[in-house]
């Protein structure tokens, strides 16, 4: 299984939309840096991630909190720590970064 990381906001870049086209069901998607803006509850990007079947969506807590988004994150998106990022990177067979 692949871990996809996305570090650009969905409004400024096609990184996330391309990632979602290229992710298999069951894939892991981690939003980090400006990518965490895609985690906003009710945003088109968060809704798109919620409707795609079997995706596991995460956002890096440090980047979410740095941007003041902690109360705005969609319920389907799990906030994780750096240590979790490392663990997911090891558990997946490859990491693809969309930037």
């Amino acid at each position, binding site marked *: 299984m692949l871990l996809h990381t996305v570090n650009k906001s969905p409004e400024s870049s096609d990184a996330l939309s*391309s990632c979602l*086209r*290229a992710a298999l069901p069951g894939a892991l998607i981690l939003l980090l840096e400006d990518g965490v803006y895609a985690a906003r509850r009710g945003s088109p990007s968060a809704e798109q991630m919620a409707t795609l079947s079997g995706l596991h969506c995460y956002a890096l807590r440090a980047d979410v909190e740095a941007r003041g988004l902690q109360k705005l994150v969609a319920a389907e998106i799990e906030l994780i720590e750096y240590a979790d990022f490392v663990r997911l990177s090891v558990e997946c*067979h*490859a*990491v*693809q*970064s*969309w*930037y």
Partner: protein
Amino acid sequence: MSDAKKKLLLIFRHGPYGNKLSRAGLDVALAAAAFDQDINTLFMDDGVWQLLPDQSAGSIDSKNVHSTLQSLPLYDLESFHVDSHSLAARRLEPAQLDGQLVLLEPAELAEFIDSHDQVLSF
């Protein structure tokens, strides 16, 4: 370290001259090919512009990305995989691009990427 060959995928998602990514990716492709690795390339998003012929990068004091791409078949990197969605979004036809192309339809893209052991993004 296992001696088994790994399937390596290089994904090019950025245009050829706005940054150094394309050159870096091509350097990796040439280095990996020199070590006889099993490599595929995938061009998607603005990366498809790298395959446009008639680039004359001398006009901006750059090395021609397209000429380097043309040299890849010498290293047994015969074909370029291309995301058909990215072409359509840019009103590009495969015939306008150079090289031996393998078009990937939207339904094939995810499986193709997942079939590799390592993925590098440029």
